């Protein structure tokens, strides 16, 4: 068997982008050479990588969740983000690590959302219930679970741009300036996206309260 005959000819990514390979559910065998590890990195690169993981893992993981990656997939998605970072470490400039990770997370989340859009809700409600229950006393858990589901529905209805800003500002507590820098977006645009997110948030809450009032 020819080992390398089926591997596509390497072509440089155009503007750093290429079609997703190895889609979920298919045992794709295509390999994009530019996405592979560079095996000869020095030990200090490994140290830098570990520092990068320690400083950003929690943020990246939560950002992925905020972008709609379901609980059962988020660990894998986070691994994927950091695997990409490890592979491309020598192209990530010092000080730009977080911007790289968040941009990669946005792409990863988009793929994960597409792959799992259909079967998301059922399994995740259970996983969510388990996690919320572990952190709240029983009388709190029902309303917290409901609130979390509502939050997910609200976030799911946002555009990805608005969603990113809302998550980073309202849920992660970042400053607008930091968000503008990390997302490489003008400050005015960040502010208008936040406004839109907040309007939608209020609208969702009003709708929910109206429904609850109607049921009572």
């Amino acid at each position, binding site marked *: 068997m020819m*080992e*390398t005959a089926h*591997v596509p000819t*390497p072509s440089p*990514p155009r*503007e*750093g982008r*290429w079609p997703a*390979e*190895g889609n979920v*559910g298919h045992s*794709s*065998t295509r*390999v*994009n*050479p530019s996405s*592979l*590890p*560079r*095996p*000869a990195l020095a030990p200090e*690169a490994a*140290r830098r990588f570990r520092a990068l*993981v*320690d400083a950003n893992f*929690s943020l990246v993981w*939560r950002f992925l969740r905020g972008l709609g990656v379901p609980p059962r*997939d988020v*660990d*894998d998605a*986070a*691994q994927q983000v950091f*695997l*990409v970072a*490890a*592979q*491309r*470490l020598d192209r990530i400039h010092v*000080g*730009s*690590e977080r*911007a*790289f990770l968040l*941009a990669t997370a946005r*792409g990863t*989340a988009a793929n994960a959302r597409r*792959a799992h859009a259909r079967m998301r809700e059922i399994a995740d409600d259970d996983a969510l219930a388990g996690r*919320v229950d572990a*952190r*709240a006393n029983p009388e709190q858990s029902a*309303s917290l679970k409901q*609130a*979390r589901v*509502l*939050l997910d529905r609200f976030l799911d209805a946002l555009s990805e741009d608005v969603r990113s800003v809302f998550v980073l500002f*309202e*849920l992660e507590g970042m400053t607008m300036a930091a968000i*503008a820098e990390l997302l490489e977006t003008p400050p005015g645009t960040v502010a208008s996206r*936040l406004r839109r997110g907040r309007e939608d948030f209020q609208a969702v*809450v009003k709708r929910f309260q109206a429904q609850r009032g109607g049921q009572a």
Partner: protein
Amino acid sequence: MSDPERLLAGAMSDVERDMLRAWDAEQPSAEAHARARAIAGLALGGVLVASVSASGAAGTNVLAEVGSSIAPKAAAMGGAAAKWLAIVAVGLAGAGATAALTIPSRAPVPLPTAPTAVHTFDIHEAMRPWPVTSATAPVPTDYGRAASPAPAPSARPPSPASVHSPHASAAAPPAARPTSLGEQVVSLERARRAMQDGDPALAERRVDEYDATFPGGALREEAEALRIDALSARGDTAAATRVATSFLATYPASIHARRLRALVVSGADP
């Protein structure tokens, strides 16, 4: 730019507050964090770096072997660990493919202990057994510098001196050695799963097995943290506190330190 007041800081209804506070439950596990750190060891550092830098092109085949040797274990395990190992294995197997793509005219340098693996490695076979969720996201290139052209993707060319030096080749560790980190992950995953299944006694035995199989292993910190969790879950607070105290002395900057300090403090209370 002055920031607006955050929603949570202002007046709001209970529903709004619950929605935003529900977010606090979103926290990654320490295990997920540790796995991300381990990518450095598997793909870029540790034993692998030593073998790669010692033997150049042969080193990339070592990576391919690690990938393919992890694969069957991952396939046999099922679940989260298998998926994670699969992702890593693909990354590693891919490193071998890079070498094949970029230096096709160079005959693979046989490894001292496992020459056949070099010739039989097949990226398709290596990737086939598991459904891999490696849908590669659009990746930003050259972050932090605006209009700099990205370098052409290629494997780093092997150093001719190291590739052809018999000493360097002989200095490469046996091919079986680099797999140990993957095996360690698999071993600890068993302990972690036992904890998840509510069997801390089994988890503790698994950690014992890990310690016995990999004395001084690279994931000792994670193993000890699991042991403390298992002791604590079994209700042996005294032992958990004792091990946690020793853990904190050894790994003061550990990602588990904060949680374990709390345990030590509460364990010391009457």
